[in-house]
Every structure is written in structure tokens, then in C-alpha cells.
């Protein structure tokens, strides 16, 4: 049962999400109050380095966090106005399965090695009781050819190991799009691929976005992929959102010193190699976050206040949101 929402209403709203994990070395705070909205038919990029919490955010939305060792300490995840964290597991599975789809980074690990790919896509329809066995198979073939797999009828009978990395990723995309989800979460969908294949997958995702009117959450560490595909960007660091901006503003006028540092550290294909400006140090371990602003130890602007209090995500002069006590200050 689908609920229609107004175009300006967020499709998905995450509010003050806190997730931690138990480990032998103590409690790991993976998400420390993450909030953002996903709008209708937009591509929202979650940009961050390892340990920033971007994948945990996706796992929390999909209900893939094992508890224990994980624990969702607080927050709300609103889908169509319903809080996914407070509905019965069965209901959540039904809702998430139909409305939210996930594309994993490692397609070989995500596909079942002992069943043909067509069978695995058709399984989606069988589980959700939509189609008869033969119709499901036909639909699987149609989906495979829609994501650009040649000779789809033939390839549907083949097994995952018979596909190349790019083709497997297309199978994953076909499976994700099967139930016409309203939200697609793509977790590093092109990271393991060669650039020429990455370009094919990016084109495929762009085309799907136009055809299906779905909203995408694109999880990536690659500024290039963000610049190619995203409408808005959520920059994460140390389990918090540090900047939210539309993609043009983010690249032309970044507000948070971390975002600025990231852009300066990136080698550019379109310009000659002057000296790169790295960010000193390395990303913090979620097991030992610094007090106050997590970026403080690496930040050229850091003052006493940064250690004392976590800067809230606040509107800046150029309408971005930035979690910094000194947003927009040149570094």
C-alpha cells in the first residue's frame, strides 16, 4: 500500500540518530546525532571518509544493524511520516522491502552464488507475492535488459560468477529497481569498478533516476562521483553531519573547514599538479572521538570553544548548513 506525499515533503527524514556498538575495547559511537531529509526525486550524496558513519546510516535505515552488538540509542527515521524504529519488525520488513532498496558495493558478496541471477531477481516478486512464477521470470529478464545487460534472456540463466564486476553491479541495480522503490540507497556503487565501467554504471543510474522518479541516497567517498550525480550533499565526519549544501554551492563555496580541506586535498584531472594541500593527521577512530568538534585536532581554525562544545548544524550566509563555530572562515 503506497502513500503519496506532497513533492516538497521529505520522502525520508532522519532525526537525531544515534547508533553505537559494543566491542571488547569499549563502546564505539558510530552515529552521534545525525539528521537530514531526503527530498522527492533527488540524488542526495552522503560524503565521508572511513569511519564517518555513512554506511551505518544506510544500515540503520534498512534495519540491518544487529542488536546486539549494535544499539540504536535514540532518534527517528520517518518514512511517509511513520517512524521505522517504532513499528513491528514484520511491518518494517514489508514497508522497507517495497519502498526502500539497497545497492551494495560488493555485488559478488551480495548475490547468492548457487542460483541463476534471473531466479534471484524473480525471487523479489515471489516473496512480495506480486507475480506468478512465469511472469516473475519474464519481468526479471525485462529488468536485466533495462539496466543494459545484452542478451538478457540468456544471461538470466547464468550464475553470478559468470558475470564481470560491472555486469554484476547491473544485476544488483536491476534487483533493487524490481519493486519500483521510492528510495534507493546506493552504498559505494562504483568503488570497486574500473573507471570505464564506473562511467557506464553512473550513466545507468542517471537514466533510472529520470525514468523511475525515485529518490537516491548515494553513499560515497569520491568527490568526482558526487559532482557527477548529486543534487545535494551531506558531508559526514566522526559520526556527525558537518555540512549540508546543494552540490554547486558545496564545490564553489564550502563552509566547513573539513569540506574545504577535502576539496584542496583532491588531485584534479583538469589542472596541472601544483602541491596538494593535505589535511594533517587522519580521520578519528569512532572508538575514541575527540571532545567537542570531532574535526578539531586537524582543523586550522580550532580554538578553545571547539573542544568545549559540539557546534550545532546551523544555517550559514550562503544558505548551506554547517556544523562549525567559525563557518565560512578562510583557512
Amino acid at each position, binding site marked *: 500500500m503506497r502513500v503519496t506525499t506532497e513533492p516538497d515533503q521529505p520522502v525520508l527524514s532522519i532525526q537525531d540518530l544515534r547508533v553505537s556498538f559494543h566491542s571488547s575495547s569499549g563502546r564505539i559511537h558510530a552515529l552521534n546525532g545525525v539528521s537530514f531529509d531526503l527530498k522527492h526525486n533527488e540524488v542526495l550524496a552522503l560524503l565521508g571518509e572511513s569511519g564517518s558513519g555513512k554506511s551505518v546510516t544506510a544500515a540503520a535505515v534498512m534495519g540491518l544493524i544487529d542488536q546486539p552488538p549494535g544499539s540504536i540509542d535514540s532518534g527517528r527515521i520517518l518514512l511517509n511520516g511513520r517512524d521505522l524504529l517504532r513499528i513491528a519488525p514484520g511491518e518494517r520488513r514489508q514497508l522497507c522491502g517495497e519502498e526502500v532498496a539497497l545497492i551494495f558495493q560488493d555485488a559478488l558478496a551480495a548475490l547468492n552464488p548457487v542460483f541463476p541471477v534471473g531466479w534471484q531477481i524473480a525471487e523479489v516478486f515471489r516473496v512480495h507475492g506480486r507475480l506468478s512464477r512465469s511472469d516473475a521470470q519474464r519481468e526479471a529478464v525485462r529488468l536485466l535488459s533495462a539496466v543494459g545487460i545484452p542478451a538478457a534472456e540468456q544471461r538470466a540463466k547464468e550464475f553470478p560468477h559468470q558475470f564481470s564486476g560491472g555486469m554484476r553491479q547491473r544485476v544488483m541495480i536491476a534487483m533493487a529497481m524490481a519493486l519500483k522503490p521510492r528510495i534507493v540507497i546506493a552504498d559505494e556503487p562504483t568503488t570497486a569498478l574500473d573507471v570505464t565501467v564506473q562511467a557506464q554504471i553512473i550513466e545507468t543510474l542517471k537514466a533510472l533516476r529520470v525514468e523511475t522518479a525515485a529518490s537516491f541516497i548515494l553513499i560515497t567517498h569520491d568527490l568526482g562521483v558526487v559532482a557527477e550525480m548529486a543534487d545535494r550533499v551531506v558531508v559526514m565526519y566522526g559520526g556527525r553531519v558537518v555540512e549540508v549544501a546543494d552540490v554547486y554551492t558545496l564545490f564553489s563555496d564550502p563552509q566547513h573547514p573539513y569540506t574545504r580541506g577535502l576539496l584542496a586535498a583532491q*588531485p584534479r*584531472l583538469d589542472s596541472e599538479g601544483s602541491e*596538494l594541500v593535505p589535511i594533517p593527521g587522519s580521520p578519528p577512530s569512532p572508538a575514541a572521538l575527540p571532545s567537542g568538534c570531532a574535526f578539531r585536532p586537524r582543523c586550522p581554525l580550532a580554538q578553545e570553544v571547539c573542544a568545549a562544545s559540539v557546534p550545532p548544524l546551523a544555517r550559514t550566509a550562503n544558505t548551506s548548513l554547517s556544523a562549525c563555530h567559525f563557518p565560512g572562515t578562510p583557512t
Partner: protein
Amino acid sequence: MINETIPPEPLLKVTDLHKHFGVQRGPMGGHKSAVRALDGVSFELAAGETLGLVGESGCGKSTLVRTLLRLGSPTAGSARLEGQDIYSASGPTLKHLRRRMQVVFQDPYQAFNPRFTVAQSISEAWQIHPEVLPPSQRPDRVTELLTQVGLRPEHANRFPHEFSGGQRQRIGIARALALEPALIVCDEPVSALDVSVQAQVVNLLTKLQRERGLAFLFVAHDLAVVRHISRRVAVMYLGKIVEIGPVAEIFSAAAHPYTQALLSAVPVANPVGRENRSRIVLRGDPPSPVSPPSGCRFRTRCWMAQEICSVEEPELKHRTGNGLLTACHFAAAQANHVKAHKKDLDA
């Protein structure tokens, strides 16, 4: 014959290197065929120079690295480091050669013995090559090396698991420097690192090269990093170099369609103008190296392909009147096309 701009005595000279791996087919093991991982690779590398090596997975980059380091022997061809043939060398000569070429691996998590302290990892090489440094000077040298790569002296007594990925890569570089090599082969040295840390390691490599006159063979799939660090770039496709030349010309005037496709496939880290950006999207995947296409290997994915491409294999040679060597029958036409396009953009 390879490139006139290089001094007559290159540090590394690779000539027509082949490496084939046997593949058995059929239930009884009959009908043997071979994966031609390297199929006639030739290039030179001058002292103090960085040659970037790019190409998609399966193109033979890693086989080239392994074969050059003599971690495997070639099927045919030769490679000379400082005038010494790498593959006929044995005994003390080989030992010396191994000392002169070191490697920095991709995965800083697997490149260290977890039971060795940093100092032990770095000093281990001196036990095998004691002539490099007398034992009394070794502890001081470890301190010096760690400082040079941006770590602190007290890090010497810690274990690999106590370090982040970027720090481990620095330790890997310190270990490679311990034997005072002339050539360091960097096999995807920054691809496992976060962007903010990657820049630190790239800058470190550049600094060390400037200070010590090291030569790098820099293997990577990230073209932006390669552009940043390399003086010359070689592009490989299915076991062959299809284009090689100065970095500026590869990135602004590439004449091989594959190089052009590779460059146009890289996502640009700037959203302005993305709607109008045209991109060459190659169809399909690279063909199997067991049975590469006849003639030009790229022709099955090439939009320029004509009859001649399936009949005659294009030679790697000067075709466009600049520093590039290109293995494409239509390189000159491609170069003119690029020039015309650039003029349009300037106008």
C-alpha cells in the same frame, strides 16, 4: 628508438617483455592455451623520473610489477636495471639488483609482519644486506628514516596494528628507503587511503624524489593521482602499452582512442557544466587475454575501428608529431580531432 628525449643510459630499460600463464582446458587437461598477461612491453625509465602506469584491471599492470621485481620470470624479453640484466642475474649480482629496486605495496595492512615492531620491519632488510649499514648505526638510521617520512622516533617500538592506514604506508616507504634503492615500484600506493590522507602520501613521495633523486614506477588506476605525480605516463590495454608519453601530452592531446575513453570516463570533481559534458562510454568489458582480438586489441570496443584494425596490429610509434608514442592506425586523425575540439572550446 623508444624516446629521444631520454638520456642514452636509462635507469630501467624494458624490452619486449612477455609473460604468459598456462591455462589448461578440457577435462583431460588437453588443449593448452595461455593468458598473455604481458605481450611485448617495452619502455624506459630515467633516473629520478616518475613513470605512471595506468590501465583497467586485467591489463597486466600487476604482472608487469611482479615480473620487474623478479617475483616471477618472464616468458620472453629482457629488462635491465642500471645496465644489469634482471633475469640472467644470479648470486651477488641479483642480490645487488634486488637492493636497488624496492616496492611499496597497495595494502598497508598486509605488508607488515604483525609480530615485528616498526624498527624490526625496517631493519630486517639490513640483515640480508649488511653491507649497506654497520649494525652500530642502524638504530639511528631507523629514527632518521621515520622522521623523513613524517613519523616520530618513538614510533619505532610500536607494532603495525597501532597505526592508521596512512601511517602504515609511511612505514612502508621508510622500509623501501632503508636499502637506498634507485627505483621504487609503487603498486597502487594510495588507493586504499582516504582522500585527506592520500594527499599526504603523494606529497611525501614527491618530496623524497626531489631530495634523493629516486625513480618511481607508479602504478595506479586513479588518473588524477597519476597526473599529479608523473612526468611520463604509459597506458596499458590487454598486456600491451597502447600509448606512452609526457604527462601533459597524455592528458591534453592523447591520440589513442582508449586513452581518450579512459580520460573521459573519470568523474570530474566539479559539478559546473555537468549537463553538457560529453563522455565516451565504452561498450562492454575488456576481452579475455586468453584469446585477444586479432590486429588491434582495442578494436572490439573502439568507435574508430576499420577493416585494417582487425588485420594489422598497430605499432607503438611516433604518429602525431609530438612526444607521444601511440599504437593506433588513426592516431593522427584522432589528434587533429582533439585539436579542433580544443579550438572550439577556446573560441
